[in-house]
């Protein structure tokens, strides 16, 4: 347990983050959306981390959605580690739809399988709620 806490604290104080592009270049601030789905793929990468969800609608149709979030260092500092999600986990992801109409969202608020709520966005991207006081 102490090791877990130590690892967590180290992760929270490591590696950089910043907005790779402005929110407005990609997402529609007037289209908030909630996805509830099952993880099918995880990409813990730069410049963004991605995870993909199978979302089933009320008629049983399954659609795979891509969820964009901050880079791995940023997510670690917020207490979200790689091992916190795995294929098959169910997630609630609140964010914004892509402007181009693709099955692609900005994963702004993520409820992890253990119930923790993590900010998933990119620091200083100018998206809704961003304070504008960040570094880019």
């Amino acid at each position, binding site marked *: 347990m102490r090791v877990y806490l130590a690892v967590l604290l180290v992760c*929270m104080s490591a590696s950089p983050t910043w907005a790779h592009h402005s929110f407005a270049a990609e997402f529609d601030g007037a289209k908030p959306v909630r996805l509830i789905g099952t993880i099918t793929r995880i990409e813990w990468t730069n410049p963004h981390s991605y995870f993909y969800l199978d979302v089933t609608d009320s008629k049983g149709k399954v659609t795979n959605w891509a969820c964009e979030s901050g880079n791995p260092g940023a997510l670690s500092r917020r207490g979200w580690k790689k091992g916190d999600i795995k294929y098959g986990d169910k997630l609630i992801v*609140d964010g914004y739809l892509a402007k181009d109409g693709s099955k692609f969202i900005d994963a702004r608020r993520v409820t992890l399988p253990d119930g923790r709520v993590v900010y998933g966005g990119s620091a200083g991207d100018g998206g809704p709620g961003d304070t504008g006081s960040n570094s880019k």
Partner: protein
Amino acid sequence: MNSLRWSLVALGLLATQWAVAAEKRDPDLLPEEVSFLFGEEPTTAPEPAPRTADGHPDLSGFWKGSRATTPVGNIGKDLPGFKLPLTPAGQAALQHNLTKTIDPEALCIIGGIPRHSASALPFEIVQNSNRVVFLYIYTYFRSIPVDGRKHSQDPDPTFFGDKVGWWEGDTFVIDSVGFKGAPIWIDENANPQSDAMHATERWTRPDASHLHLDLTVDDPKFYTKKFTYSRTWLLGKPGEELKEYSCSENNVDRAHLGPGPGPIRKDGTRGYDVPPLPAVPPSPEDYEKAGK
């Protein structure tokens, strides 16, 4: 066993507090992330700036922006109303950047200068007697010779320009010409710069904790007159350093990006002045039903 039990209780309490805190702060950043991005003013009188063996101030260090210095990403930061003196050609280039150009950095193209100095992102300086090297967070660098050389007669256009450096007392001067032409963003707000730009940077380290830049931009193609920009960075904490960053490792979003930086707020930064996420946003099906 008791120890394990108490550890579990403590962890449970921590997790609960954390979840509540995350919800309260959502969607802003946790303090740990803010303190990573921004430096802090020293709480005691700063030490004098260190000096190298040849007597110059040593600019070496890991430097971070100050949260108190705004706006970030706006080269017009120090001008009234943030208004840049654009020529008609500069206005046209700005419109092109706003409406036709995807942010070059989002496509993993080097930002160069002055853009890297317009942002408050951390960077590192390494200095010796005949080189001063800037290492940037995007894994880009520029290495400035300090050996009395002049500019190349016919420099190859580059994002950081053809640069030479020299000392004037305790001020390190970097003179840069030979930049690439439009469409380049001089800052995060998509303001333009041309291949005629001449950038003069005057760097000082007034004390051990602060690094200061006075920049003059002279770009007669796009700006009617010279303008200036200043920023001070704060020394990072011991052990802080740049991490590896590979922009094109998995740049999925490049296929989804549109032009421009989005709306510019009155305070000179980019972003929306709209409420944050609702507690329960609509589902994709709700949008389909509404025909949106």
